[in-house]
């Protein structure tokens, strides 16, 4: 394990130190807003205390795990390909923007535009789980992958802001909630998740809860909604003229 004190280091120097470090496990302390930490990194684990800057783990590659022990800022996991980003706090806006693989796990809440335009292809199936709630435009233009919002402090209230899933034309959004968002677009199908659908996320949700010590979530008893693109009003028809 290699320790790096990030105090007063510019993000370019810091990222160079991480990239050329031979040890595969790097622990950063005193991080204060340095951007692009772990950008396009492959096969390395990074542990962060302090506040990592914007675009943490952008274009992240396989075999990498980034763990943040505080909150993170905006655009975490931007266009990430693979690997995992684990945040033991809140996230700013647009985490998982255009993400095309890997996992982002956020214990508390996320800002606006979480999972904006995530996409999937064959075995690349990105996943984002948020423990509590997210702001507006969650999963906007979603093209693939899965977003799960658990609302673990919300007592069954809807854990998303306005315009959830607006423009989505692929992928799935799971909401642990007793009510649906009030302004759902007609281009979205929303229904209570079936047993099969819940089975498909059971493993991930269970390990998320044990990772963050969240104990009040019960996949068998709690109500989960699933949102997906409408089978009748397909956006696809808007984009392609057949």
């Amino acid at each position, binding site marked *: 394990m290699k320790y790096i004190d990030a105090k007063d280091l510019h993000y370019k120097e810091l990222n160079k130190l991480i990239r050329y470090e031979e040890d595969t496990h790097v622990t950063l302390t005193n991080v*204060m*807003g340095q951007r692009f930490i772990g950008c396009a990194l492959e096969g390395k684990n990074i542990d962060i205390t302090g*506040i990592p*800057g914007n675009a943490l783990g952008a274009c992240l590659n396989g075999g990498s795990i980034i763990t943040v022990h505080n909150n993170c800022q*905006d655009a975490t996991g931007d266009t990430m390909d693979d690997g995992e980003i684990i945040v033991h706090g*809140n996230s700013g806006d647009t985490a998982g923007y255009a993400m095309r693989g890997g996992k982002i796990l956020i214990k508390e809440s996320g800002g606006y535009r979480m999972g904006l335009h995530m996409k999937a292809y064959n075995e690349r199936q990105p996943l984002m789980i948020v423990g509590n709630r997210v*702001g*507006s435009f969650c999963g906007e233009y979603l093209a693939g992958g899965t977003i799960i919002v658990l609302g673990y402090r919300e007592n069954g209230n809807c854990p998303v802001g306005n315009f959830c899933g607006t423009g989505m034309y692929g992928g799935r959004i799971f909401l642990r909630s007793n009510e649906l968002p009030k*302004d759902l677009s007609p281009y979205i199908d929303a229904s209570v998740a079936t047993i099969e659908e819940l089975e498909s996320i059971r493993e991930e949700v269970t390990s998320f809860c044990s990772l963050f010590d969240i104990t009040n979530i019960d996949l068998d008893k709690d109500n989960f909604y699933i949102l997906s693109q409408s089978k009748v009003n397909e956006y696809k028809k808007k984009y392609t003229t057949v």
Partner: protein
Amino acid sequence: MKREGEVRIPSGCAISGIFSKKRRLFSGEMAIDSIRVMHDRSNGLGGGFAGYGIYPEYQEYFALHVLYDDRKAKVETEEFLEEHFDVINLSKIPTRKIHAIKDEPLIWRYFVEPLRTRLMESQLEEYEYTARCVMKVNLHIKGACIISSGKNMGVFKAMGYPEDVGEFYRLEDYKGYCWTAHGRYPTNTPGWWGGAHPFSLLDVSVVHNGEISSYDANRRFMEMFGYKCTLQTDTEVIAYMIDYFHRKQGLPLDKVASILAAPLWSTIDRMEEKQKREITYLRKNFSSALITGPFSILVGFEGGLMALNDRLKLRSLVVGEKDDMVYMGSEESAIRILENDFDKLTYPKGGVPYIVKLEDQQ
């Protein structure tokens, strides 16, 4: 060199603000420490600060901070000021010669009071009188720019990175209960001193991160009420709109926020009846003052500070509170550098203002 207004400037930028609800005074260095963290959000083409409560010994007078291109502009402006104001005190604003800040204009400060006879003649109250005089100088005297005109407050801005601008103006020597800071990233012009943030009229100052798509509509609307946009960067018009709605029309700031960042109609539809009527009224009547495009702003005013995002929240903004202190910033790191243990951390929603005021003024 083309000045702003001759070319269009979208900008990136960083903002931060610090406020003590108990009116505890602290030096401008804290604002410098905060904005320095976001160095990479600026490109060295503008930085600035606004401090409130910094001139207690002259608190009943308007403090004018003026930038002059040359002596001629200074002579002309001082003649104008002598004609319209009683000048209580005038001095150069103390600066420190540093490598990072070059080509400074002449930078002067005047504490003034409207001349009683002129004021009576004008049939205006002193704030309106002073505002009109400021507009007049900025519009008609070539090479003169009044960047700040409130009471017991001041704006300090320059070309350069904000942390250097703070050092240049010796902000460690000023103590205020509120500071805002700005680092600029204009992408289309060289930028210039007057075009740096904050933009200010009377005691209102605005720092802004974003780009106003509706600038021209907003500008034309404000011209109907006598506000001339002389600096022609989009932020200037926000300062005037707040001055108009808040000072002249007497609307509380949360209502002003509902005009500038009006909710979408689909959101208004779901409001309860009373609120719906009110917001619909504001949106319909002042549609020309709706700001479209991404923005996060901090608005300093006498006794308070307001943070506001555009309704779609296309820019970042975080607010932390600890005891009587309130910290606001584009990035969490910019406020964590000052305080690591918040009582409360808030990510304001789009279009929802976060307003703090001095406890003795609530």
